[in-house]
């Protein structure tokens, strides 16, 4: 049963198993274990980013393609829900319509980009996705009649998913629509994550890994490398769009900063690399560590910067706004010395 659920891809390390179980239990009972608005917010963000990073890992870790357009697909899903909720009106139908339309649009766009760039050289893909993603981001902020521009869109979702909806108390925690909303996101993310795990452990996933290791040889054995790369791209784009839709349902707001910015793209890259490229479990650990660090470590940097006042240069280096500097350094170091990430280290040290 468990083996089927995990598609035969067990964690293969005692520590890793314990960590994953800890994450699963914490997220599954988050509203009861960590009551409070902020911690629920963090838990939902972690769920969504686990899914987003896992879908990116399908591309980067398993297929060996670098894409800079993952936030674009994420944003497509989010804007799909937002636009459907604004124009169709509040309701479950609007959510479903927006989600499906977003995922479909993402898959089609990924197909077009893939046909243009992957046909010739995989390296074109990184550059072309960067260009297309930035063009889309600019377009979204310019078409403000439709997308709300830089301000973004706020909209209403079904009442059952909002804090105004009350159901009673369990274990001293008041069950509101917000908690139902959290569980909707949690179970959707869990299901899609298991689906991705299924994909990478299928024969299709094996071919992707063969393409990553040696595309020339994979082609020689008789697999059309282009088709496999494009399929992986479309799949990963569609799952990213679904994650975006969930994020939009959770936040009840979309804007360029929360869904489309290049900074989120860097965050995703970092989560994949820190967790471990080429393992779905790496996405879980990477996202958890990163989101927690982002939410709580920045405060610590502020404290350190205050403590260092008066010293030369150090306060500027430790300023919470220079958070990205340290991320960048960490990123380079982990690519060099830590290419298999946390999961790879744990599995090797078994």
């Amino acid at each position, binding site marked *: 049963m468990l083996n089927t659920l995990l598609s035969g891809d067990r964690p293969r390390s005692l520590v890793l198993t314990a960590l994953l179980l800890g994450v699963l239990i914490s997220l599954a009972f988050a509203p009861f274990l960590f009551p409070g608005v902020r911690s629920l917010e963090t838990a939902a963000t972690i769920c969504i980013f686990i899914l987003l990073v896992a879908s990116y890992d399908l591309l980067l870790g398993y297929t060996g393609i670098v894409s800079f357009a993952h936030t674009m697909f994420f944003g497509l899903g989010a804007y799909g829900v937002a636009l459907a909720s604004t124009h169709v009106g509040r309701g479950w139908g609007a959510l479903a319509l927006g989600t499906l339309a977003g995922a479909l649009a993402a898959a089609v766009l990924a197909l077009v980009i893939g046909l*243009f760039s992957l*046909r010739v050289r995989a390296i074109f893909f990184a550059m072309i996705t960067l260009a297309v993603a930035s063009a889309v981001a600019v377009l979204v902020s310019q078409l403000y009649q439709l997308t709300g521009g830089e301000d973004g869109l706020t909209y209403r979702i079904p009442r059952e998913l909002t804090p105004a909806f009350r159901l009673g108390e369990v274990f001293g925690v008041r069950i509101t629509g917000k908690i139902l909303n959290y569980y909707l996101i949690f179970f959707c993310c869990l299901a899609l994550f298991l689906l991705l795990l299924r994909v990478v452990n299928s024969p299709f996933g094996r071919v992707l890994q063969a393409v990553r290791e040696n595309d020339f040889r994979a082609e020689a054995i008789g697999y059309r490398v282009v088709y496999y790369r494009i399929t992986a791209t479309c799949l990963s784009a569609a799952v990213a769009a679904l994650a975006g839709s969930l994020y939009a349902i959770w936040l009840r707001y979309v804007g360029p900063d929360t869904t489309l910015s290049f900074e989120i793209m860097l965050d995703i890259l970092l989560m994949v*690399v820190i967790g471990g490229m080429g393992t779905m479990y790496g996405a879980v650990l990477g996202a958890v560590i990163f989101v927690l660090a982002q939410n709580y470590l920045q405060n610590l940097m502020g404290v350190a910067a205050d403590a260092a006042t008066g010293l030369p*240069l150090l306060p500027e280096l430790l300023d919470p706004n220079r958070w990205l500097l340290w991320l960048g350094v960490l990123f380079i170091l982990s690519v060099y010395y830590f290419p298999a990430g946390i999961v790879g280290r744990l599995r090797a040290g078994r």
Partner: protein
Amino acid sequence: MSVAPDHTPRMERLRPAERLGQAAPYLLVPVLVLLGWLAIGSPSSWLTLTVSGLAMGMMIFVMASGLTLVFGLMDVINFGHGAFISLGAFLGISVLLALPGWTAADSLALNLTAVLLAIAVAMVLTGLVGWGFERVIVRPVYGAHLKQILVTVGGLIVIEQLIHVIWGPDEIFLTRPEALKGAVTFAGAALEKYRILAVGFGLVIFVAMRLVLRRTKIGLIVRAGVQNGEMVETLGYRLRLVFIGVFIAGSALAGLGGVMWALYQEVITAGMGERMMILVFIVVIIGGLGSVEGAFIGALLVGLLQNYVAFLEPKLALVSNIGLMTAILMWRPQGMMPVVKAK
């Protein structure tokens, strides 16, 4: 003993269609200029837009040339190239801001000296940073594209953030030196002096680069290295050293492009290089990775199209470049002038 038969090799002349295929990229620029004239109608605005498009194209070419050569020579794709653009701009503008007496004086000689000094400082320092970047960031990941992309993106972030640390988080506004302000009127069209200067300067750089690549021994080695690096190494040339030289020169050119772009926009931010990189990537892709001439034509096309479309339909400016890239990749999937690799 019989005499060897006469052997007179003869070069087959190219058929007209093949000649046209070779010349087609060069023809695209005049065709685009003509189309722009037809679409815009008013000759004076067309002239203004063409000059600013050419100026923009020249600046993008200066930034893109280093990137495309580095890729052609060593198969290294440097996503951190944009950091050198920002760095060059900040260094150059700091020099200009430190010399208010020279830039504000109403004397062409003093103004130009200040600008040239700024350019020299920016190029030397970005070249040095490029050298360090090559040693620390790029060298350990030769031959692995995936890691190259990841690591150079990391380098881009670090340099950008260090610019924030050194120069502060805010954008810096500047004014051009006195002699470069204002415009001249020609045939009813107002042409900004600085743009004309930028076109001239860009042309000089392109011609100089072509001369170095075509007429000098080092240029010969670079071109041969792009075509078949292994063979060049077999002949005893240390391609690694040549590559480091090209990397440093490419970084310095990016710094130069940054200074030119800063004087064009009259504002600098740490993120400017990252934004320029999008156009630079489009240019090197449509030009054909590794080809300097291709990058030159690609840059002119991008600059002109951007200006024409921004005039006709402002919202489509960036999208039009994606459209251009799509069209060219449909026509030639390897870019307009693909570098033929002898492998």
